[in-house]
């Protein structure tokens, strides 16, 4: 009051100082707000701990009853038979195979798309293309599964060979062209101007002919294949790859963007071409971010349930030979989803606990993936900061 009087203000002007009551109210609100936020945060942390606890609690009785040996080494999965067998090796393998297939689809495609988005496409086009790719993440997985079962599976059965043959060309040709262009560029880099273009042509022609021969051979071999069952590891790999694509593209694009203008401009200023800048400067600098993107994509693929349940065929086998993607396989997630209903919860049977053992395997795996991607990203950030 005295202050305002000395400053010549009218006494009824609101003071900037809060009254004691208002200050108390503010402090209570603040404490309450902070407490609320803390509770919410710790709830989600607790949820993770609880999930771990409850899954482990129901998984351990299985290992106590049956031991580790059968679960991890046998391929015989007969959970419902009188003399039940719980060999999950084929199922673990199925998960691994399908995830590997998804990586083969998602990683080259995803990284290529990310490079294209961040360094090749003009800004306006990128603004349109990126959201479209991200829409892929918004499609419900059951819709993917339906597509895999009703469209892709019959297609693979009827025209699987020719489709694969054509696919080899569609994928192989641009990859080969790119590789040859980069290769020729790099090999002729140091040559004097006069001979450079001639040598480059020679290299392009030679390796081009080689690539076309290889593609023809691969295409012919694949076109002769007959796929007896369209619901197989390949089908699921393709779909899972597409599902993991937005994750891989988004995260690796972010990593590529994070490399920054200065590094690129520095590289151009030293006379490097765009290919050289991309391959030798941008990609190595963004490497760990891209690796993290791949790990996140893997997690997306291995945890997916609906698509694999609908379209992987769910046959409990390790294909012969093991990399044969055209055989039906069974994954952990599909087994858990498919067997849960009949597994006897009330009597706490082995059949019930074995599903939790599988869930624990999945959980541990995702946890490790998550930790390593976290670690990689943190390390990359530190490196970039230093």
């Amino acid at each position, binding site marked *: 009051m005295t202050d305002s009087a000395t400053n010549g203000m009218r006494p009824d002007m609101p003071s900037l100082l809060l009254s004691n009551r208002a200050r108390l109210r503010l402090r209570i609100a603040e404490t309450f707000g902070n407490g609320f936020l803390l509770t919410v945060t710790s709830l989600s942390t607790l949820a993770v701990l609880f999930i771990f606890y409850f899954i482990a609690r129901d998984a351990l009785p299985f290992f106590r009853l049956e031991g580790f040996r059968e679960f991890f080494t046998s*391929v015989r999965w*007969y959970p419902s038979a009188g003399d039940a067998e719980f060999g999950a090796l084929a199922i673990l393998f199925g998960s691994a195979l399908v995830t590997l297939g998804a990586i083969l689809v998602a990683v080259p495609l995803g990284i290529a798309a990310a490079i294209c988005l961040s360094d090749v496409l003009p800004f306006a086009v990128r603004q349109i293309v990126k959201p479209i790719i991200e829409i892929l993440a918004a499609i419900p997985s059951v819709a993917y599964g339906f597509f895999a079962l009703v469209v892709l599976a019959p297609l693979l059965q009827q025209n699987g060979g020719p489709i694969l043959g054509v696919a080899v060309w569609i994928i192989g040709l641009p990859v080969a062209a790119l590789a040859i262009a980069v290769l020729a560029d790099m090999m002729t880099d140091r040559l004097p101007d006069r001979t450079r273009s001639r040598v480059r042509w020679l290299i392009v022609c030679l390796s081009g002919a080689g690539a076309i021969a290889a593609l023809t051979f691969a295409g012919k071999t694949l076109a002769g294949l007959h796929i*007896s069952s369209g619901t197989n590891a390949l089908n699921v790999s393709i779909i899972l790859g597409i599902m993991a694509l937005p994750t891989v593209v988004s995260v690796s694009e972010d990593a590529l963007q994070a490399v920054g203008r200065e590094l690129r401009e520095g590289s151009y200023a030293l006379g490097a071409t765009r290919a050289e800048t991309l391959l030798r400067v941008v990609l190595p600098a963004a490497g760990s971010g891209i690796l993290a993107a791949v790990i996140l994509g893997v997690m997306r693929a291995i945890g997916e349930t609906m698509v694999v349940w609908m379209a992987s*065929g769910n046959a*409990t086998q390790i294909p012969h030979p093991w990399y044969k993607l055209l055989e039906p396989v069974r994954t952990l997630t599909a087994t858990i989803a498919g067997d849960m*209903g009949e597994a006897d919860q009330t009597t706490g049977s082995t059949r019930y606990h074995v599903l939790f053992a599988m869930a624990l395997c999945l959980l541990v795996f995702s946890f490790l993936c998550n930790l390593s991607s976290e670690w990689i990203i943190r390390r990359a950030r530190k490196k970039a900061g230093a």
Partner: protein
Amino acid sequence: MKATEKILTGLATIVMVAGIAVAGDANKIVVDGSTTVGPIAKAFAEYYMGKHPEVNITVSESGSGNGAKSMINAACDVATMSRPMKNSEKKAAQDAGVQVIEQIVAMDGLALAVHPSNPIANLTIEQVRDIYTGKIKNWKELGGPDRPIVVISRDTNSGTYESFETLVMNKQKIGERVEYVGSNGAIRQRLLGTPAAIGYVGLAFTEGVKALTINGVQATPETVTSKKYPISRPLYMYTNGRPTKGSALFNFINLSETPEGKKIVEDVGFVPVK
């Protein structure tokens, strides 16, 4: 004045809503269980609700095992099952204070079905078993075209699978190359799209696919009822205790004994009980 009015209206609404809720509870029937019995339960529910609009019947299809589980947990009024309740389930129900009462609502035959283009018309039950164990791998071993057989089974979660296991497999184990599928409809879908496939489905799901004769007997309502067809089974509805005569639950359960109910059972492709 206005405030009092508002409060009064609010109270009245609450009372009305509560009243409806209570009345609804008495006339609410929750059905859960087998995907095979599902169509029957749904058709029954539709028919019954058409006649008694005050009754509300919800039908879920989560598999026979889940039906039994819901019954034990008192989460449903009627458990539909395509296999009889196991002793372990009955015991669990007893422990939970649920007294299960069994009622056979229809008969079902499992039809072995193939793609319409498949020339094979008849299999013996031993041949079916050998196909599912993986002993017979190619259609040419059965006199058909030279194509590896794509063997399709229902998932181990389904009553249909357990019926097949008991009725056909005779304690032998299903082979490793057999594919598992989540519903009767999905099997039909796979059969329609896969020339080399064989699968088993309920009689109601053979539309469009080719049903094989087993041991020379066609799966028809007559052969299923007379048990001449070797792969046939009863379908069940279970209730907690005997429903009181005249109650909605009683009438719903016993629809299968009425002429209209039998017609419904036939319409959805099963065989009515005699």
